[in-house]
C-alpha cells in the first residue's frame, strides 16, 4: 500500500506501429495492399487508354492536314517515344515514379550546389557579418524538397496565427452570450468566404501596410490568408466548448470562490480543451487544403506554385511531376491529420 504511483506513464506510441504488426492486422493489411494494387492497375489502364485516344487524334490530325506520309511519320514518332510528338495526357504510374526520381536527383544536385556555394562564400560572409552587413544568400532555384519545406512552414505559421486569433476570441465569445449573439454575424458572413477572396483582401492590406522591401511579402500574404481561412472551425468549437462547460465544474469553482481569472484558466479552459483541439484538427486540414490554392495565386514559393509552374511549363514530364506533387500533398495532409488526431486524443480526459 506504500508504493505511491509516482511512475510516469510512458507515452503511448502505438499509433505509430504499422497496422500489420497489430493483432489480426495481417488480414486487414492484405486487403489494403490489394486495394492499392487495384488502384494502380485501374490508373495504369486508364492512362494507357487516354494515351491511345490522344495518339489517334494526333495521327488523324496529321492525316487530314498533311496527308498519309505525315500520318505514318507521326505514328512512328509516337511509337519511338520522342519528346517532340509525345501525347500530352494523364501519366501512367511508371511515368510518375520516373518523375519522382527526376525530382529527387534534381534535389541532390541543387543541395550539392548550395553546399558548394556556402563553402565558397563562408569567408566573405564572415567578414561581411563582422562589418554588420547581411550575408550573401543562395539565390538559385529551390528544389522540390525545399518547396515542400516552405509549404509546411507556411501552413504552420498560418495555423499558429489561427490559434492565436481564434482561441482567445472563442473563449471571450463563449463566456458572454450577449457578445456571442451580437458578433455572430461576423462568423456567419466570413466563414464561407473563398480562400481566393481572402488572399485578395490580405493582399490589399499587406501591400499597403508593409513598405519594407526586404520582407518576404508573398510569404506573409499567404500565411495570413491561410490563417484567416482556417481559423473559423477553431473559433466556433472554442466558443461552443467554453459555453457548454459542465455545470458541476462551475459549481465547484463557485463553491471554492475562484477568481474569474482562475475560473477561466483552471476550470473552463481545461474543460473545453477537447473541443478546442477538435477544432484545431479541422483547422489544420482546412489550412493545408487552402494553402495550395493560395500559394498558387500568391506566387509564394511552395507546392502550390510548383504545381502551377509545372502546368505552365509543359515539359514532357511536367504532368508526372504534378501527380507526384499531388501524392506528396496528400501524404503530408494525412500525416498532419494523424498528428492532430494524436494530440486530440491526448487532450480528451473522458
Amino acid at each position, binding site marked *: *500500500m*506504500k*508504493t*505511491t*504511483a*509516482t511512475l510516469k506513464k510512458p507515452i503511448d506510441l502505438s499509433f505509430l506501429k504499422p497496422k500489420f504488426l497489430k493483432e489480426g492486422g495481417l488480414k486487414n493489411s492484405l486487403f489494403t495492399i490489394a486495394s492499392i494494387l487495384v488502384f494502380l492497375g485501374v490508373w495504369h489502364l486508364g492512362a494507357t487508354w487516354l494515351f491511345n485516344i490522344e495518339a489517334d487524334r494526333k495521327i488523324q490530325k496529321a492525316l487530314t492536314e498533311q496527308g498519309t506520309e505525315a500520318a505514318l511519320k507521326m505514328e512512328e514518332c509516337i511509337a519511338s517515344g520522342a519528346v517532340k510528338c509525345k501525347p500530352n495526357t494523364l501519366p501512367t504510374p511508371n511515368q510518375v515514379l520516373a518523375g519522382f526520381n527526376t525530382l529527387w536527383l534534381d534535389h541532390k544536385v541543387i543541395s550539392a550546389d548550395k553546399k558548394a556555394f556556402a563553402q565558397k562564400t563562408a569567408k566573405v560572409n564572415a567578414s561581411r557579418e563582422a562589418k554588420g552587413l547581411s550575408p550573401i544568400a543562395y539565390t538559385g532555384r529551390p528544389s522540390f524538397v525545399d518547396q515542400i519545406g516552405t509549404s509546411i512552414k507556411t501552413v504552420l505559421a498560418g495555423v499558429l496565427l489561427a490559434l492565436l486569433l481564434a482561441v482567445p476570441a472563442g473563449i471571450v465569445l463563449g463566456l458572454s452570450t450577449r457578445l456571442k449573439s451580437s458578433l455572430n454575424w461576423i462568423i456567419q458572413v466570413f466563414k464561407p468566404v473563398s480562400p481566393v477572396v481572402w488572399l485578395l483582401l490580405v493582399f490589399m492590406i499587406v501591400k499597403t501596410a508593409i513598405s519594407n522591401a526586404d520582407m518576404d511579402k508573398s510569404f506573409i500574404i499567404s500565411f495570413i490568408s491561410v490563417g484567416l481561412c482556417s481559423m473559423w472551425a477553431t473559433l466556433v468549437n472554442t466558443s461552443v466548448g467554453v459555453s457548454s462547460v459542465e455545470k*458541476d*465544474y462551475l*459549481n*465547484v469553482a*463557485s*463553491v*471554492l*470562490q*475562484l477568481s474569474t481569472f*482562475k475560473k477561466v484558466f*483552471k*476550470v473552463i479552459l*481545461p*474543460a473545453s*480543451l477537447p473541443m478546442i483541439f477538435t477544432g484545431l484538427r479541422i483547422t489544420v486540414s482546412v489550412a493545408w487544403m487552402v494553402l495550395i490554392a493560395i500559394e498558387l495565386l500568391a506566387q509564394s514559393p511552395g507546392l502550390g506554385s510548383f504545381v502551377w509552374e509545372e502546368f505552365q511549363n509543359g515539359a514532357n514530364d511536367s504532368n508526372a511531376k504534378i501527380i507526384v506533387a499531388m501524392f506528396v500533398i496528400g501524404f503530408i495532409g494525412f500525416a498532419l491529420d494523424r498528428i492532430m488526431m494524436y494530440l486530440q486524443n491526448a487532450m480528451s*480526459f*473522458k
Partner: protein
Amino acid sequence: MSILSINNVSKSYGSGSSKVDVLKNINLEVENGEFLAIVGFSGSGKTTLMQMLAGLVQPDRGEIIFKGEKVTGPSAERGMIFQNYSLLPWLTVYENVALSVNAIYKDKSKVIKDRIIRESVEMVNLTPAINKKPKELSGGMRQRVSVARALAVDPELLLMDEPLSALDALTRGNLQDEILNIWSKNKRTAILITNDVDEGILMADRIIPLDPGPNATFGPEFKIDLERPRDKTAMNHDPRFKQIRNNIIEYLMDIGEGRKSTETEEFILPDLQPIIKGSSLKKVA
C-alpha cells in the same frame, strides 16, 4: 445559539403557467456541532435546498442566516460534497484537492499547503492513488476524493448532497464509517441529504423528513439519541433503532399516500356509446 437558520424560505423555478414551486416556507435551526440528516423522496427539492445553503442558488423569499450573516453567495466556510463527485477529470487526486486548498489558504506557504493536501488524502486512505486521475478510480474512491477536497479546508459547515447514493451497498457502508470517523474528530456541523432512512439514523443526531414537492416543507423532526459510535450490525437488533426507523418510514409512507390521494380528481366521463358496424344504435342501448 444556532449556527444556521433558515427563515421562511421559498423557491420556485420558471414563470407563468410553467412555474413550479419547489420549496415553500421552509424553517430550520441547526445547532453548532450537530449532524443533521434530511430525508425525502427524490424530486422533493432536496438538491435545491442544498444549493441554497451553499449559496449557489438564491431563495425567492425568506433568508438563510449563517453565523449571524445572511447568505448571499458561496463561501469557503460552507464546504460541499456533491452527489456526482464533480471532480475535475483533467487533474490528479492531489491536484483536485490542491485546487480547493490553494483557493482557500491563499496566504499559507507552499510546504504547509502540500502537507494539508497530503494529510487530507491520507485521511480518506487514498495515498496510494494520489497521482491518479479520476477516471482511473472507482466510484467509491472518487467520492472519497470529493470528501477529501471538501474537508481539506476545514469548513465550519459541511453540506453533503446524497454523497453516497450512487455507490454500491458495501462501499456505501465503508464510506459512512469513514465520514463519521472524520466528523467525530473535529465535530463540525454537518448536514446530510439522503433518501436512505437507515443511513440517516446511523449518521445523524436529528432527522427531518422533507415532505414531497411541489411546495415541499419540512415534516416533524425525529431525534436520534443512540449513543456513538454506532455499530451497524449491533444497531439492527436495537429496539430503539427499530422504533425510530418504523416511525420515520411510517411518516414518509403516509405523506407519500397523501400525495397520491390528493391527485385523484374525479373525472365525469361523457355518456358515449361505441358504434359497432352492422348493428343498430338501439341494439347497443
